[in-house]
């Protein structure tokens, strides 16, 4: 049969493939996300409907269309087929079950989404995952795995020759985990405009002195640096305290309240630059409002999820990350501000103009956040 084909035809096929990978759809992938915290397992598994159809048949009426009704009717079969090809071990076989069947769309079509839950015999450091979905019928299939063990992420591409993954939740991963939370902390301060604006509002006057109702530049860098250190340290100490007690769930505040208070703190800090009330002990302001900002940081940490067995480590990592992020901002701000402190550009443009802008932004935030509160209350 093969030999009857002509060279030309074969060559056509070859060229069509090599020069036009022309893949209408990509090859088959499934997306497996698993979180293992101690003995508890939660996760989500997206498998293409087309692949499920090829394996166990979904098109009950044979019309070439897969409807939600046809998928729902095979719910139990789909779960049994998929979970029979996934094995998770931590101190023995973990029980896995599908709690919910949903659907989602990826670049190459519709996927069944299995929400997973389960329990492992122990929280032993060694964890093994064995994946063999579809390999028996499609050797190009790959499982794209995102596995978080006690909060430490691992990613892997699982194939016919690499379907087994061994993970050790040990020392090295602890370090990685610390690093991960540290990075999150840095990012959070950078993208948290409200925190940055608050900090900058307190830092802007650090290179200036308010004397006889006029602002003039400080005489030495040392003076400015001391002021900045007081402010930053006070802010840090304060938000570390509240971040910790909120993350450990000792005190919990409604997030709308916290967010609104943060907006108010930014507005007040900016207003204080324009109409000075607190001049000498700005670190006290930093400390007081820092307590509120700490609750704001905590809400992020709650969303990220703190691994139970490495709570303190992750908290510390996040906190250090926030500090590192702050220090970078200070390191960029302070030298420039000091050099420019006696120019009109700084005093009028940056200090007054920046404070006005910050005040306006903060008032809009405040309005938005309070408005949301009313919406929810109604």
């Amino acid at each position, binding site marked *: *049969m093969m*030999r009857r084909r*002509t*060279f*030309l*035809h*074969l*060559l*056509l*096929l*070859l*060229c*069509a*493939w*090599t*020069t*036009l*990978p*022309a*893949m*209408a*759809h*990509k*090859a088959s*992938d499934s*997306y497996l996300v698993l979180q293992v915290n101690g003995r508890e397992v939660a996760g989500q598994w*997206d498998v293409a409907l*087309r692949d499920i*159809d090829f394996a166990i048949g979904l*098109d009950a009426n044979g019309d*070439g269309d*897969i*409807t*939600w*009704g046809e*998928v*729902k009717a095979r719910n139990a079969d789909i779960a049994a087929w998929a979970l029979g090809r996934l094995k998770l071990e931590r101190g023995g076989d973990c029980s896995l079950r599908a709690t919910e069947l949903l*659907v*989602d769309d990826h*670049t190459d*079509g*519709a996927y069944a*989404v299995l929400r997973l839950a389960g329990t492992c015999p122990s929280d032993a450091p060694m964890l093994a995952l064995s994946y063999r979905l579809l390999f028996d*019928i*499609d*050797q*190009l299939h*790959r499982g794209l795995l995102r596995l978080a063990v006690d909060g430490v*992420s691992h*990613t892997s*591409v699982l194939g016919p020759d690499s379907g087994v993954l061994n993970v050790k939740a040990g020392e090295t991963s602890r370090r990685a985990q610390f690093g*991960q939370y540290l990075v*999150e902390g840095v990012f959070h301060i*950078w*993208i948290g*405009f409200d925190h940055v604006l608050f900090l900058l509002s307190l830092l802007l006057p650090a290179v200036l002195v308010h004397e006889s109702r006029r602002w003039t530049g400080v005489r030495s860098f040392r003076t400015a640096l001391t002021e900045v250190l007081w402010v930053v340290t006070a802010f840090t100490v304060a938000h570390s305290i509240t971040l910790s007690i909120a993350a450990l769930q000792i005190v919990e505040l409604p997030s709308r309240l916290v967010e609104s208070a943060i907006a108010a703190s930014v507005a007040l800090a900016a207003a204080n630059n324009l109409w000075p009330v607190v001049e000498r002990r700005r670190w006290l302001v930093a400390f007081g409002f820092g307590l509120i900002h700490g609750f704001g940081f905590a809400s992020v940490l709650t*969303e990220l999820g703190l691994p139970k067995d490495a709570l303190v480590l992750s908290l510390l990592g996040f906190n250090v990350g926030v500090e590192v992020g702050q220090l970078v901002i200070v390191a960029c701000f302070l030298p420039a501000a000091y050099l420019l402190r006696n120019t009109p550009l700084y005093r009028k443009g940056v200090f007054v103009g920046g404070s006005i802008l910050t005040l306006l*932004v903060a008032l*809009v935030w405040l309005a938005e*956040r309070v408005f949301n509160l009313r919406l929810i209350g109604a």
Partner: protein
Amino acid sequence: MTAIHRIKPSLSASTEIFQPALAVFALTAACLAPLQPLAAPRLPTDPAEVLERLPMRPGDATARELAGLRAAVIRAAKEAPADPLPATRLAGRYYELAIARGDPRYIGYADAVMAPFAKSRSPEVLAIRGQLRQARHDFDGALADFAGALEVDPQFASAHAWRGAIYLVQANYAAARQECDALLKLDRATLYGGCIGLVFAYSGQMEAGSAALQRALDETRDPGNRLWLLTRLGEVAAWRGQLDEAEKHYRAALALGLDDGYLLAAWSDFLLDQQRPAEVVKWLAGWETSDGLLLRLALAETALKQPAAKTHVQALADRFAAAKVRGDTTHRAEEARYLLHLAGDPAAALTVAVANYQVQREPRDARVLLEASIATKDAGAAQPARDWLRSSGFEDAYLRRLGSASAQ
């Protein structure tokens, strides 16, 4: 680790101030994006909602044929487990579907069907395995498989044909020519004509190549073969600068009325080179599912400043990202063109083009490498393409100009 999802009130003033931080964040989010589901999972409410259209219905002729072939494989597994022929038939059919429909899932199916015969030395098994390997761009593995088939059966003409075709992609014209000669010795005149025509065309004797392809065309009535020969004749004419001649060949091929991705790609590239993007948009309507054709469509739409360009460029970005996540490198030639001409990232384009040229060395692979090296002013990176231009004597004037420009 998920990105931070906390929603921030956004104001343009504040976003401008913190653009660098935003950029870093966006970059991180972009890196994580391929692993994220596209949309939130949902629970449909209507049982009649159509979620997916399958490529074929169970009652279709192709589906019935596949079912028959599958049944034969299952039967053979029970009754004659050592007989690989039913499996090679099914795998061969899957391979054809992969090409015709541009769907790599069928390659994976074929691989799985052949898995039980991994140790077989039968020429048929080795030949299908070679085809599947070349489809995954494992050219050396494929060459070895076809060589193995020839050891058992020296008369196996198609194994020579495949080896010739792979050597052409690798720009090893001396080796390709040996395979052509073997076809001549086996008295397969048509196969020989197609083989030697391309060897001539790729190695500096376009006129002779053109003549050989034309002779082969005169000899065959099979529409599929004619389409392929006309397409290649069109390409050779375009390289020679005979634009009217090229268009005549392409139009004759298109007039056969067969769907063919390679022809459409070559014709679109010709039109794009002639600054005729509007025609590309017309011809490629409905071919968005093919990555290679979507690339040409997006290039044409971008040239015309059409609104659809944005969506299509994004779709390409998504597909290349998805391929990257699974470690798929068979799209690199297209990806390099996308990065260079659509994403505006010549440095990344050069990296991908260099990697691609280590595997595939056809004229179009050389071209994107030269273009990327000119765009990045990195003359050294294109040395392999200039070496090829010098050693092959390839006669395309445009490519030769690129070669000189890239050396400066």
